[in-house]
């Protein structure tokens, strides 16, 4: 029960302030009441949009999740390959580690204009922004984890007849996969940040786009439910990844 307390306090404080403000000025838009937000949700989630014939909340969610999912999967794949290559093969590591270190210091949002110029304003540039934003961090983490695998295990694998290739395949990849899932969970917040930033600047749909669109009308009754929805989605993805880690890698102690 204690874990619910902060949430309850937040809700109580919000609705008390809201009703106080609305009592003074019923036209107030800053802190909408539950009814106002309910109406907004009804309009966006359960009413066809007159212009496009879509249910906006769901089409926004679909568009955003596609970008986010694609960005996460591509980042994970790149990070796994590069992380293992730089962590396992000393020559590759010596050559690329400093480069990756420098690249990871580039603020991704600073290169957003470049991405828009190079990849156009379509889906691609948004996915690339997510990838650029989170991949270097995951790579560096996986690289570190690869190096932390005790040297005894490398020797042991060699005495069992492993070649460099089968050693990567049967020892390093399986040992790193749970860590990769944890990295994805940790970079989920950044991934959302980059997604919403990209959508806010150039898009025609998506959760971030919608929030920045209705901002013009000071439509807090739409923005707040959208933010809550994004938060819920983020939490659900995090929880799903956590459960996946536990289910797929029961031996991994760090995942518990």
């Amino acid at each position, binding site marked *: 029960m204690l874990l619910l307390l902060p949430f309850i306090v937040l809700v109580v404080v919000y609705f008390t302030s809201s009703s106080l403000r609305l009592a003074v000025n019923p036209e107030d838009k800053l802190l909408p009441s539950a009814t106002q937000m309910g109406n907004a949700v009804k309009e966006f989630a359960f009413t066809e949009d007159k212009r496009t014939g879509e249910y906006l909340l769901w089409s926004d969610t679909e568009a955003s999740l596609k970008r986010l999912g694609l960005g996460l999967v591509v980042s994970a794949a790149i990070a796994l390959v590069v992380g293992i290559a730089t962590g396992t093969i000393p020559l590759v590591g010596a050559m690329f580690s400093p480069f990756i270190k420098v690249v990871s210091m580039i603020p991704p949002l600073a290169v957003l204009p470049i991405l828009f110029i190079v990849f156009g304003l379509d889906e691609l540039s948004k996915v690339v922004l997510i990838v650029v934003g989170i991949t270097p961090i995951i790579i560096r983490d996986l690289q570190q984890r690869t190096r932390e695998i*005790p040297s*005894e295990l490398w020797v*042991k694998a*060699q*005495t069992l007849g492993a070649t460099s290739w*089968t050693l990567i395949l049967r*020892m390093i990849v399986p040992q790193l996969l749970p860590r990769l899932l944890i990295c994805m969970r940790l970079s989920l917040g950044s991934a959302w940040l980059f997604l919403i930033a990209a959508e806010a600047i150039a898009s025609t749909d998506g959760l971030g786009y919608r929030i920045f669109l209705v901002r013009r009308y000071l439509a807090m009754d739409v923005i707040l439910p959208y933010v809550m929805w994004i938060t819920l989605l983020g939490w659900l993805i995090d929880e799903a990844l956590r459960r996946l880690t536990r289910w797929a890698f*029961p*031996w991994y102690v760090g995942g518990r």
Partner: protein
Amino acid sequence: MIEVRNVWKEYGEQVVLERVNLKIEEGEFCSMVGASGCGKSTFLRLLLGQERATRGQILLDGKPLPGEPDAHRGVVFQRYSVFEHLSVIGNVLLGFELPQAKLFGRLFGARRRAARDDAVAMLERVGLGTVLDKYPQQLSGGMQQRLAIAQALVMRPRVLLLDEPFGALDPGIRKDMHDLLLKLWRESGLTIFMVTHDLKEGFTLGSRVLVFDKVRIDPQAPGAYGARITYNIPLDHGGASAAGLALANGAEPSAAQSAAQSAISRTSRAAVARPVRSEAPT
């Protein structure tokens, strides 16, 4: 079978091993004892191929030892000897899969079933037949070492190298492990090299005890001279057990043992404080 010819190992200025010469016949069980930092683990790593000798040669059946660890040499370390991401059976199966499946490192179908049967048979020999699907994390330290031994033995190595394999175990469990290791050694006729801190263990298990010690010491430059094999003591096995027991009971140790013991206590009292204090002749 194994011949070590004038091997030196240096790390920069520091000489760890100097002028090591040794000839070991097939089927010997060599215990390597000595103070901490006297190079016995380094020597084991040389035999393993994890490191190369600075000078000299190590020959296996008359040919130079391959410079990298390979399937001819099995190894069990004190820790990190098993793969925690694989179940007990998976750990042993790996020894069949890696040499046979070069592309994916996995076997399928009939070959997998055959390998699995062999793996199960080996696990039953070391007493792990009932925990096939557990992960190493769920096993006790002793069971993990049993698994590590099984994993090394399925490769049918020419040489088995043990680096303080029982150092982290309780005394009671250690006794069981000794019995198991002796049983496996007699059955398989393996050549075994074991590094140990425990003199009694070395004398109980080994058919030969190698004592590593520094012959020359320069107090101004501790790294200037390395250790050698100062005693190479063959034991017939019945006698070895008796001697080990005698040592355990605090009786007067044999000449060989006291020589070994004094060699150890001279270079590093702190490192072997326990056996020296409790078992030194009064």
